[in-house]
């Protein structure tokens, strides 16, 4: 049973968003990391890069697959999780904590409200697995 923390926002592409003032932290969900398998490499953007909502900002690689990762909201990159370069497996072991990927300064703070709640995301993933 995948973990879906209550206090986060979610996208249909399996990313989560944690709001911190006018910034947002983004990563991929427990459901996503489970489907991917052992993560071996995470490709992240550089600080300062700008992204529109639903634009890919990087990718996650397992041994046999590559998946693009999208930002559910628009913003510019303030910081990236450099630790993932040495320990990409954090995405598997702690997807909502140590496995965070980027921190954005949000372009439209209200945008998060159009994302899925934890309950909505849980229903969505249940439907997907059927």
């Amino acid at each position, binding site marked *: 049973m995948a973990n879906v923390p209550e206090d986060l926002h979610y996208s249909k592409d399996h990313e989560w968003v944690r709001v911190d003032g006018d910034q947002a932290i983004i990563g991929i969900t427990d459901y996503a990391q489970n489907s991917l398998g052992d993560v*071996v*490499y995470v490709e992240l953007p550089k600080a300062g890069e700008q992204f529109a909502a639903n634009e890919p900002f990087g990718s996650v690689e*397992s*041994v*046999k*697959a*590559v998946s693009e990762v999208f930002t559910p909201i628009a913003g510019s990159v303030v910081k990236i999780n450099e630790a993932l370069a040495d320990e990409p497996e954090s995405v598997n072991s702690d997807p909502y904590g140590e496995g965070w990927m980027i921190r954005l300064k949000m372009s439209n703070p209200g945008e998060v409200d159009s994302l899925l709640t934890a309950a909505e995301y849980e229903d969505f993933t249940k439907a997907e697995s059927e």
Partner: protein
Amino acid sequence: MEMLEAMGLGSAEELFDSIPEDLRLKRPLNTPAALSEIELLDRFEQMGARNAGARRISFMGGGAYAHYIPTIVDHILSRSEFFTAYTPYQPEISQGTLQVIFEFQTLVCQLTGMEVANASMYDGSTALAEAVLMAERVTKRSKVVASTATHPQYLEVVRTYVQHAGIHLETVEFDEKTGQSWQALAAAIDDQTAALVVQSPNFFGCIEDVAALADAAHSKGALLVVGITEAMSLGLLKSPGACGADIVVAEGQSFGVPLSFGGPYVGLFATREKYARQIPGRLVGETYDKKGRRGFVLTLATREQHIRREKATSNICTNEGLIALAATVYLETMGRRGIQETAHQCAQKAAYAARAIAKLSGYSLPFTAPYFNEFLVRGPGRAVDLLARLGKEKGIDGGIALSRFMSDRPNEFLVCVTETNSREQIDALVDGLRAL
């Protein structure tokens, strides 16, 4: 027949029921009937006998080199377990192949002075083309500069590969006095340049100043790509890696691979560790199983076509596995001492030949640059005729006429000397040229 019946089929023809009738061949193929082994070998021996070039004493280089191949190379290549094996996708039953590739990758790094090498490309020319594509990926710039002292066929291949890749290939001319091109290349660098591409020793055999080029390229944030056609030069000359190259590609045919009228050969491709995820081709890495036993696997596969598809670093799948094995066996047999001794003999014999030819009246060496085992000779008349007569009258292939590649240089030809050319052969070449 039994099997057909077991399938409920009346005839072999029914196997193809899913092919519409109007598409099925109603006649036998118009190709020859089967030959027995005896007849077949006879036919091929006859065709082989019509290749006079294979029987002559040869001083031909130009991208393919006649070096001695130790007897054990072919023996090992002929082991069923190596040549009838498949790509090592199932590592548990392919450790032989995988370990060979790991050793090959290591040897290529050692020789080129680089940090990461792949499991092989088709040959030197396509390796060079892929290096140019990689430089564009890494720098995100689209201008690449090469010189006309690069092997003309290699340049043609690069042009084919870049024509739809949004890469602009510029060429600069080599220096008429020295035969080198590095000064012109260095002068052409700007901040739009993705890479400078230099062949060293170049098509004329001249050694280029790779270190100076590396500095020039890096000063503008560009990469230096070094291409090598005569890999044996790495036994004597400073490695491109030690000179600061970013990507090194080479034709590996000099290492235990027969001339075989142009193929199969093997492309070497090496780069710095920081670019490992941008490298084309297969990579073998070291790892362990659950019991801690060391093994090797294909790795970083997410760069490749079967996973990344249109975003792959290359479309390459099958490469030159068995030829990489040949090179590996050769390099390990000759070893640290043998490669250096072979390179030393090549250089000394070439210098001996050059000195003697330069003394002949009517002959000169147009370029002043240092060379490894190949150099340009200017003769008293059309090189094509001169060489044809030398071949017919003395049974010697004295070199390659430059006019075959550059129509404005009719009297010049490339001479290559390797450890397989004895003093008698070199003296016969010189005598032959003198007599013409």
